[in-house]
């Protein structure tokens, strides 16, 4: 059977399209990576284009109020009492400075003391939730939008889970379908 010419042309065109980003400089916004590097081996930081972390309005940067390191003793706060009241994450002994850094106030910190920006908070979450972190890095946990074969928007843990109260909240469902006997009325 002869193959019509356009059927050949389409794969060829696709090849050209796929090859183009290889020649383009790395980080070019139009470059859709044709063959991704093994996802598990790459740190997700390079691929991620997360939406900004969902801060309450006017709360960030923290350094606009917290000029220097504060009292690290766990206690009932007078100001961030609303956040403290809704804090349901892990054991009751959980305290702000377990995750937020006291020295560099606009940063978080890992257990080993490494300071990380809010945009890389997944590293912090992954310390305890390693299984989820592993799944999230390869796209099994969490949500991605954009292109299945190219540029994606990843969502940070905190885009879906409130870090202070991470349990997913119940939603109002959309309306149920019309029953067959009600169709046409």
């Amino acid at each position, binding site marked *: 059977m002869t193959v019509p010419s356009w059927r050949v042309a389409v794969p060829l065109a696709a090849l050209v399209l796929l090859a183009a980003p290889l020649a383009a400089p790395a980080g070019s916004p139009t470059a859709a990576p044709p063959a991704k590097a093994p996802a598990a081996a790459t740190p997700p930081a390079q691929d991620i284009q997360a939406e900004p972390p969902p801060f309450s309005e006017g709360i960030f940067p923290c350094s606009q109020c917290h000029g220097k390191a504060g009292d690290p003793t766990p206690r009932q706060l007078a100001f961030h009492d609303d956040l403290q009241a809704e804090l349901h994450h892990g054991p009751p002994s959980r305290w702000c400075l377990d995750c937020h850094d006291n020295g560099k106030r606009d940063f978080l910190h890992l257990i080993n003391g490494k300071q990380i920006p809010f945009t890389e908070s997944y590293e912090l979450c992954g310390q305890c939730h390693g299984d989820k972190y592993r799944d999230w890095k390869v796209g*099994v946990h969490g949500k*991605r*939008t954009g292109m*299945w074969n190219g540029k994606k928007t990843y969502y940070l843990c905190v885009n879906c889970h409130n870090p202070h109260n991470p349990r997913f909240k119940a939603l109002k*469902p959309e309306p149920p379908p019309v029953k067959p006997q009600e169709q046409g009325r």
Partner: protein
Amino acid sequence: MSQHDRLPIVQDAAEGCEAAAPPSRRDFLRTAAAGAVIAAVSGCKPDAVVEELQRRHLTELSKDRLQEMLGKLEKKWSAEYGKDVKVGLRPPMPGVNFAYGLDLSRCIGCRRCVYACVKENNQSRKNPQIQWIRVLQMDKERGVSLEHATPYYNPEKVPEPGHFYMPVQCQQCRHPPCTKVCPVKATWKEPDGIVVIDYDWCIGCRCCTAACPYGARKFNWAEPKLPAAEMNPVTDYLGNRPRPMGVVEKCTFCLQRTRTGRYPACVEICPVGARKFGNLLDPESEIRQVMDRKRVFVFKEELATEPQFYYFYAT
């Protein structure tokens, strides 16, 4: 053979003979019918009617003929819906076989996917109400059991305690019973795994609807109601273009999106990230990662339809 331009279906020997021996019975009947219609209906352009009735199967049309046909549809619907409607006929991408994953341990039954699909794919809004996705509420104690499932749940908040949710849509089977029973080959499986329907070729016999074990195929019992303001103008001939009354439709993995590299609408709307989509032939794709790591099953496995739609439990 050069006429067989766009080529998703495998032709059997009988059909090949029919095409080779003019004039076939079908050609004859079609011409006769065209004559009868023209005689009966005054005021319409005879040429257009004859042309429509004499059209050959989509896979037998030349590229020029296809372009002409799509152009006419674009013109017609642009006028009807008052926007710049595009009707594409995107070919399957080479080296791609689509598969879908749905995480039953995450789905909360909020039906956001149902309505995102309706909007993207230009389904009839009501009378007839057509929805390609049906979310079943099931009992945790009984597991996946259709006898104890309902799509009509409507509480204040989901998920309800003691229940889980199983959205069902076209499973894009590798052995689709629906395409086998179609008497006119109006529906077929494409090389990228998507089962498509030519709505202009469908005769509305609903054999496919009866053959589908998943209830995925929906029939337009009345003229579809698609408000012009809500019409999605980016369409595909085999996908989300407006449908006439009396034809069958179903999920196409949003081929107008996925064949250009985008995720399906249901994947992008899901608030819990329960929906996964990708190329089964790419070991790094999300769907392959799911299959490598999680407990995966297919719905009604015993029927040997071999779906390309996988349910899994991430936890």
